[in-house]
């Protein structure tokens, strides 16, 4: 169970991981995640919480720190009606579920959510409703289950 943090459309990689702070160690950079649009986010988010956002989440740079920061802050999953291609791949590669689901109008900030990734069932305990998010293809789910692409590749290189 985790709480929902709700954002609008076009959450870009510069608000997720500000360019002028990219020299910082990942753990330090993560403290600035989304601060340009929600200064309290990084301080208040806890492991298991959810980011619920609008369209085109993660547009912009290829910088993986956008997804790394959310992962380091313990975000359970990002739910949005659509994702920018590179952010989506980065998230999956790091084992962070990026799930296509339009939560606008049905999930409010602070709602308690529970996700079953295998079935795509998303329970909103605060409102007592269950949603179905679009399932990830089995191939991509396998990357998340492995703990990310590098973990998956370790098996490949170990058997090579």
């Amino acid at each position, binding site marked *: 169970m985790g709480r929902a943090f709700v954002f609008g459309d076009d959450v870009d990689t510069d*608000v997720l991981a500000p360019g*002028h702070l990219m020299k910082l160690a990942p753990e330090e950079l993560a403290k600035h995640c989304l601060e340009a649009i929600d200064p309290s986010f990084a301080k208040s988010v806890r492991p298991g919480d959810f980011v619920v956002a609008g369209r085109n989440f993660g547009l*912009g740079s290829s910088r*993986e720190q956008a997804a790394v920061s959310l992962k380091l802050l313990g975000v359970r999953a990002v739910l949005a009606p659509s994702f920018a291609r590179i952010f989506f791949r*980065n998230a999956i590669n790091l084992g962070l579920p990026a799930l296509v689901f339009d939560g606008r109008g049905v999930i409010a900030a602070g709602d308690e959510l529970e996700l079953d990734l295998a079935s795509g069932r998303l329970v909103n305990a605060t409102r007592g409703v269950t949603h179905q998010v679009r399932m990830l293809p089995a191939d991509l789910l396998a990357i998340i289950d492995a703990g990310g692409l590098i973990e998956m590749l370790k098996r490949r290189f170990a058997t090579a």
Partner: protein
Amino acid sequence: LDVGEKGLVPAIMPGESGGQTLVEKIIARAAGLARVGPGDLVTVRVDLAMAHDSSGPRRWRPRLEALGARLWDPDKVVIVSDHYVPAVDAASAAILKETRDFARDYGVRRFFDMRGISHVVMPENGLLKPGMLVAGGDSHSPNGGAFGCFIQGFGATDMTAIVATGETWLETPGVLRIEWSGALGSGVSAKDVMLFLCREIGMENHGLVIDYAGAMIDALSLDERMTLCNMAAELGADTAIIAPDRKTLDHIRTHGGEIDDDALLRWRSDDDAEFAGVHSFDAGALAPQIAAPHSPGASASVETFRSTRIDQAYIGACVGAKLDDLEMAARVLKGRKVAKGVRLLVAPASARTTELAAKSGALTTLMEAGAILLPHGCGACAGMGHGLLAEGETCISTTNRNFKGRMGHAGAFVYLGSPFSVAAAAVAGAIVDPREML
């Protein structure tokens, strides 16, 4: 997911008959299949992989070491130090050193250390050719589509996997053809085309490749074609591509690349190829465009923003500081001075660009107008180097993104415009129609 010998994702059976797009031809060739169609998940062999100092070696080395892997082919890897250049503190110096050490330790001979921005350095060295499938560790990699290759941006983990295995998976995109008839007017450039498109077709063209065609495109230089392809990133497209013509081949050859004339016949879309959509626009009707903070899509004709005061004018970035861009700015600045209280910063896209602009006289014109010359590299566009903004300051910039906080303080305001528009604003101290100064 099949992680066996055949690659990461099994190929889905391709479509039947009919013409193919250039994109499908390249992906099919790289996947070792007769043909592919939109939506097909395929594993492709990569012909060239590029990374820079920010997303490359410093992220790759620990992962490669964890895998116990080397580069699949060091001669197919290009590394460019362009983000933290030149070092401004010990942290950026360490990143640059790490990048040099990696190139040495892993045998990467195509290492360009502080020679310019990757997207400009690659074609300067004739490395991009029609029909290639290229993976770039930067979101503006689509820039290279101007040379008729299929080139996409990837994050650091994807790139690590690519340089370790020489392959990746992708979902075959559809192709959105954008036709431009007519000719651009004086003082109107490829940058205006892109700011117009960010508004007109939006920034969420997921799963699509932008294919530019038409008389206006044919007439453009390769520098200007790169601008069109570069900002496919802002359109949210998978990438962009322009089928090669005589100009493309000449450019490759004069920059040290080898290419056969056959490329013109082989790497083009068939006449009966199916596009996901077609848009047609008249280039002659386009006015200079400006994008307001904080999105390239928040654009309108320059008239809308007339008289908006600026503190800084910035000419820089892969998209906005190539030789053609500096020449455009020089046309406006010839015999004029930067307004009092305004600073005009110029960070050329590459060392070669600076050299050519010095030879052509454009650099002298810029300096005489009062511009401040900065080192070549990504600079303030990526929130690095010189020229960052304070809270409450307003900048007009030739760069490709004006997201909140990208160029310094989150409380700064960045407008985007063409080199013509940025130079004109620097002279007037406020946004004006650059055509009045030509």
